[in-house]
Every structure is written in C-alpha cells, then in structure tokens.
C-alpha cells in the first residue's frame, strides 16, 4: 500500500520559503507532482542564464508569482568584442510579457542584454512595487529611458549598474529627475553607476555637466546607502557632496570619480565615518605635510572601512595615509593604480585581514611574495596586465609570483593571473599547494607560449591543476597546449562548470575529451582552436546538458552545423558569419562563429542578417 505523507500545502510552502537557491528549488520541484505544484506557486526569484533558452510565456506559466527576475543575454565572449554588434539579447519581449503577468514584480537584473527606452518606460509604468533595476554590460537605451524609471518609480531600493555605451548621455538631466523625485522615495536609495565601458560625451556636454545635480538632493533626503560615480568623467560639486554625505547616516558605499581631488577627500570622509566601502578619486596632489596628516586622520576616523578601490594616479608618498585602517581591510582593488612594487609591498604588509586583492602586474614577484607572507586569509587574487599589448615584459612579474602566493595563502580559492611566462613545474607546484582552488584563470599574454624552461607544451601543468584541484569549477587555459591537456581535463575535471580555451589543441580529440569527460560542464567557450566536426557530432547529446557552447575561428563546417541542427531539436545551432550566407559557400567550409545552446523555446525570431539558426527536422516537416 502506498504510503502517502501529506502536509497541508501551507506548511510545505512555509518550509520551502527557507529554500532560496535555485538549484535546491529545482530539486524540490522534482520530488513529486504536488511538490512541483506547491513550489512553482511560491517561487519568487527566477534566474534565466540564457534568455533564449526559454520563452517569457513559459516562465510566466510555470512561476506565476515571481517578484525578482535575472536574465543573461549575450555569450561571455561578447566582453572581448567577439560577438558582432546586433547579435541579439533583446529584453523587450520579456518586459512586455511580464508587464501583464507580474504586476508585483520588484526586481529586474540584466546582464549583456539590449534594453530600449521603450522597455524602460514600460517597466516604470507597469510595476507599482518596482524597487531594483540592475543593468550590467547592457546597451540600447538613453537617458530618456533612465529618466522614465527615475520619474515613475516610487520606491527606493533602486540600483543602477550601467556598464556600456550610453548615447546622448546627460547625467545632469537624469539625476535632476531622480533627485527631484527623491522626496517620494520612502526607504533607502541606492544609486550606483559603475563600470561605464565608454562615456560618449562630446566636448560641450562635458562642460555643461557642472555636477550641480548633487545639490538637488533635498535637505530632507537622508536615505542614501550607496553612491558610486566612479566612472563619471565630469567634476561634481564637492560642497554639495559633502552636505549630502553629512546627512546620510546609512551610507555604506561611496565610490568617487577621478575628478575628486585628494585634498578634498578628508572632508568627505569626515562626513561619513561609517563608510564600509570607499573608492577614492585621484590619489595624488602636491606633497604637503598638512594635507597628509589631514588625510591620515580622516582615514583613521573610518572605523568600519573594509574595502578600498579607486587610487587613480597615485602619488606613492600619500599611500601611508591609509595605513591606520589597513588592518581591517578585507578588499583592495588597485587594478587601476600605477604603484611600484616597493610601495605596494609596504601597503600590503599592513593588511593581514585581506580576503581579496585586485592589482596590476606592477606588484611584481617581490610584491606577491610579500602578499603571501602577510595575507594569510587571502581568498581571491587578480593580477591584471599594465601593458597588455607590449611585446616585451615591462615588469618583473613571472610565474614565481603566483607560486609564492599559492605557497603562502592556504585559503586561496580564486585566481586570475596575466603573465608572460609559465612552466609546467610552476603549475604543478601551484596545484599541489592549493588543491582548494575553485577558479583558476591563467592568461599567458602571448598565444601558444610554451613552458619557458623546457619549451614543452603546458599540458602537464594544467593537468596537475585539474587533477589536484578536485573542486575546480572554472578554468581558463592559455599557452602552448596539445590534445593532451584536454585528456587531463576530461579525466579529472569532474566538477568543472566553465572552461575557456584559446589557441590550443591539435585535433578533434581534444574537444572530444572535454565533451565526453566533464560531467558538470555548463559553459564552454573556444576560440582559434583546430576543432572540427567529428567531436561535435559525436557528442551532440552532451550539448543538451550544457547551457551553451561558443566556438569561433575553429574548423566546424557548415554541413556539420546543419546536421547538428537537424538532429537536435532542443538545441539552437547558430551560425554567425559576417561573410554572407553560409550556403553561398561549400558545405565543407568552416563557419566563422558558432553558438550552440539548449532551449525549449525553439529557434529565435530576432536574428540579424549575419546569424542563421540551423533548422531541425521537425520544422522541415521530415518527421
């Protein structure tokens, strides 16, 4: 006799409300039909990793009570200009559908998507409870759209993350609108502008943007929690800023732009000693003792400060001003600061609590050695190249720096490292030192660089990484690599979820190893590798278990793409080729770019002229 065990629905719903992660929620929904039903009615947050994997209607049908949605559009390689303009990622149909279906929607988070002013206006009009808008690396809108949001959104937890080209930009105008309505914002206002890729201001607009928008914050407005203007090129009114900061006791994050002079920083800091995160403006000025002591005192007054960034144009003699707070610092972003190794060493040696360091390769091996000695809690290290296009090394940063950190920092989990030389021995050492690595991205700047000691490929080095780091989730390869490295990855990379490959491999066998071996692979992106049809066709089924596969400048033929499209109806096989229609060339001709992703929404209908989705058999009426 079947044992039925039933709680009232309300009880189950209550229990489910403690489960937040999507993975867990998905697992719950698979237990049985009634759990599926209960769960879907109480799911409030939805994350769609690929906006074309599912249609808006499908999401709405399954989860009718969503309050927060996150969508991602373009493939990751779009960050490096590999995805042509106009490829897609339009959010409009989503907004239109949700406007009707989710009147209580509060949050929209978009990454690498195209959003128009019309969509922004629709958001502003349709969602009465709207609180949070986050746009990361998006494009397609102007300040008109932003103004609509600002003007109509009554509630205050309101975040902007803008990271792309903005046309017809007039921040002054936008902020005046936002701030004129400021008195309507009932709770905390978070206003963040970060990571503008390009601020497309013409000369006249720059002069017009006097920055007096800050003075429009009404005197009664005290709710600012986060202000991030780090990417604004124009000057802001410092007196207005000081007044604003002075009356906002909840301010936690302040990221200034380059135009804020260093000698004004102490006054700003004094107004908000409760700050947790600070991005400085320009970090140099004439060397004057009273300016220095003023700055040092102001920093000392910020007892909660944990995170520092900014440091544009550093004058090293001013760095010691932050020493009083170094012991509390957990996050330091110096990745735009030109600071020589010796000064970095002095700074870092005083930061024993550091969890995260982003820095330019000016830190050099010596600086990383000091980091390893001082920062035993370090979890994440990113070292960016100061001269990425130079042909010769401009700094003394080698593989040794990373080895030192791997030796000295037992909690290191996440690495992004740009360098010019690497050896298998070093990678081996790093792997053995740090089996707890979960993210390892190595970029040897010159493609196909071999082990500089043995002149061999770096297969065994990366092999050691995947073998020893059993929880590795994300891996980026570089240097000279044969099919061998992929054999290691397929054998050992069982937890690997994302793999980025460039200028590597010899044959289809390489790709086959990865597709057949990596059980948890979700995202695979490949460029300039000699991978062709065989591996792809042999592992077609695998592609349905992944979010997406990107291949550009490889050797996959048009014929293979067609075949794959025909046989796999739940994949969209997109051929991206700016040379013109692929059937104007022989079928054996390799395609420029290929983007394959699983979907239950069928082929998309918004493709530009240089994208073709391969038809499946059903649409050809062959089955």
């Amino acid at each position, binding site marked *: 006799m079947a044992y039925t065990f039933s709680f009232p629905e309300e009880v189950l719903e209550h229990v489910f409300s403690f489960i937040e992660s999507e993975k867990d929620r998905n697992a719950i929904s698979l237990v049985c039909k009634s759990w599926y039903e209960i769960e879907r009615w109480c799911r409030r947050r939805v994350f769609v990793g690929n906006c074309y994997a599912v249609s808006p209607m499908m999401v709405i049908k399954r989860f009718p009570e969503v309050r927060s949605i996150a969508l991602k559009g373009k493939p990751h390689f779009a960050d490096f*200009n590999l995805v042509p303009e106009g490829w897609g990622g339009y959010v409009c149909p989503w907004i239109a559908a949700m406007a009707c279906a989710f009147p209580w929607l509060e949050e929209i988070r978009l990454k690498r998507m195209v959003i128009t002013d019309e969509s922004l206006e629709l958001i502003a009009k349709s969602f009465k409870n709207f609180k949070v808008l986050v746009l990361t690396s998006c494009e397609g809108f102007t300040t008109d759209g932003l103004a609509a949001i600002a003007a109509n959104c009554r509630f205050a937890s309101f975040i902007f993350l803008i990271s792309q080209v903005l046309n017809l930009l007039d921040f002054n105008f936008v902020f005046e609108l936002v701030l004129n309505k400021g008195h309507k914002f009932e709770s905390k206002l978070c206003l963040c502008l970060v990571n503008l890729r*390009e601020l497309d201001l013409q000369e006249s607009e720059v002069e017009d943007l006097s920055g007096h928008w800050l003075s429009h914050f009404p005197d009664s407005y005290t709710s600012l929690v986060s202000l991030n203007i780090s990417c604004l090129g124009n000057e802001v009114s410092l007196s207005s800023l000081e007044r604003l900061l002075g009356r906002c006791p909840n301010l936690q994050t302040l990221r200034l732009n380059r135009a804020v002079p260093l000698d004004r920083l102490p006054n700003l800091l004094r107004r908000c000693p409760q700050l947790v995160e600070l991005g400085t403006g320009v970090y140099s000025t004439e060397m004057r003792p009273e300016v220095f002591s003023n700055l040092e005192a102001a920093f000392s007054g910020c007892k909660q400060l944990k995170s520092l960034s900014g440091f544009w144009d550093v004058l090293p003699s001013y760095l010691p001003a932050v020493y009083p707070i170094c012991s509390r610092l957990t996050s330091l972003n110096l990745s735009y600061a030109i600071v020589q190794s010796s000064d970095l060493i002095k700074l870092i040696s005083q930061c024993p609590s550091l969890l995260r360091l982003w820095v330019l390769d000016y830190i050099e091996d010596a600086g990383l050695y000091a980091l390893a000695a001082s920062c035993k809690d370090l979890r994440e290290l990113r070292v960016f190249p100061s001269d990425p*296009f130079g*042909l010769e090394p401009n700094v003394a940063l080698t593989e040794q720096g990373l080895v030192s950190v791997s030796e000295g920092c037992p909690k290191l989990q996440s690495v992004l490292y740009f360098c010019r030389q690497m050896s298998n021995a070093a990678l081996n050492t790093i792997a053995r030192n740090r089996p707890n690595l979960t993210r390892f991205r190595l970029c040897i700047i010159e493609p196909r660089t071999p082990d500089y000691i043995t002149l061999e490929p770096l297969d065994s080095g990366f092999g050691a990484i995947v073998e020893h780091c059993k929880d590795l989730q994300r891996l980026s390869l570089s240097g000279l690599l044969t099919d061998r490295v992929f054999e290691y990855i397929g054998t050992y990379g069982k937890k690997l979820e994302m793999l980025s490959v460039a200028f590597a491999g010899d044959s289809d066998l390489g790709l086959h190893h990865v597709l057949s071996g990596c059980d948890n692979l979700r995202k695979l992106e490949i460029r300039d590798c000699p991978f062709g049809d065989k591996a792809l066709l042999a592992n077609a089924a695998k592609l349905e278990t992944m979010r997406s596969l990107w291949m550009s400048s490889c050797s996959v033929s048009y014929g293979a793409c067609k075949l794959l499209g025909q046989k796999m109806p739940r994949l969209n096989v997109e051929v991206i080729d700016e040379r013109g229609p692929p059937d104007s060339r022989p079928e054996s001709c390799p395609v420029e770019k290929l983007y394959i992703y699983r979907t239950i929404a069928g082929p998309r209908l918004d493709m530009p002229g240089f994208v073709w989705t391969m038809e499946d058999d059903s649409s050809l009426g062959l089955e």
Partner: protein
Amino acid sequence: MLLLMEKQGLGLGLEITELRLGLPCGEPVEKKEKKEKKRVFSEIQAGDDDDDENSSSEDRKVQTKNQVVGWPPLCSYRKKNTVSQTKKYVKVSMDGAPFLRKIDLAMHKGYSDLALSFENFFSCYGIREALKDADNAEHVPIYEDKDGDWMLVGDVPWEMFIESCKRLRIMKRSDAKGFDLQPKGSLKGFIEGVTK
C-alpha cells in the same frame, strides 16, 4: 574581416600623415611595424605621430605575428583605463636640434631610462659626446614644472618628476651662466647612465 580593414586603413593613414625626414641615424623598419601592430589594438592617442621613442625598442624582438581581436581577454573598460593611464607625453627640445620630439615619461622606469631615450633621439646632434663627460657636460637637461618654473632634472624622486614635468629641454651649459650646475645625486646618475 573588420580587423583586416582596420589594419589596412590604419596602415594607410599612418603612412600619409607621418612626418619623416630620413634622418641619417634613420629608423629601422621594425619600429614602424611594431608601431602599426600596437596601434591596431591600443586606443589611438591624438597627435601621436612619434611613437618610436621607446628607448629600449631597438633591443626588442620584433615578431611579425598578427595580433588578434579580443586578445588578451580584457574588457574594453579595463583596456581603456589601463592603457591610457600609462601615457604621459611631454615635448623634448634640444638646443641646436631643429625639431622637437615627444617622449612618454610613463614608459620609462627612471632617470637612466630617460637618458637612454635622449641618446636615442638626439645622438645625431652630439648628445652622446656631450654627456660622456659628466662634470663638463656641454648640455644640461632641464624641465618645466607645473608652476612654469624651469628645474634641473634629477633632484626629485622619479614619480614626482613624472607628475610635475610638463616639458623637457636639453640646454647648452653655456646658456646657464652663473648657475651652479654641479650635477648632484640623481642627475649624476642620470648622466652616468647615458655614458655607460
């Protein structure tokens, strides 16, 4: 395809607009190739015709590989803010030389590096000989700072010098009558760096 067009277009543009007089010390072909390669992927600096002043460029290996789109993998924001930060171009004039040059101070590690650049540019105008004899150097390098004052090169730390230097001039010692031009400290090292 876009890349190819870019490269061709830039190549043509550069050739047409460059001012070259075929100086006797000449410029090796590699430098030009290197410059073109660099220009394809770094932001074009306005008025930046003289891109061959990197003192160590003669020593650099020249590879004629093609650089590629999207490599190294850095997002545009970071590329823009890192690359442009490392440019600090100032004019350099030398008494007796008909043309000024432009130097990127940020590309130099210190005073001796700078001295090498001077040697590179002005060797045909006698600076090598001038600087060999440190105590009786015929030429003295001076710079104009932010306040408009002319200062002797080498007194302040290098970082501070980069920060405040607006332009450089290699002056004839004989023009600086009445000044004690004993090179001290860094300047001495500067001159010695050239003569090594």
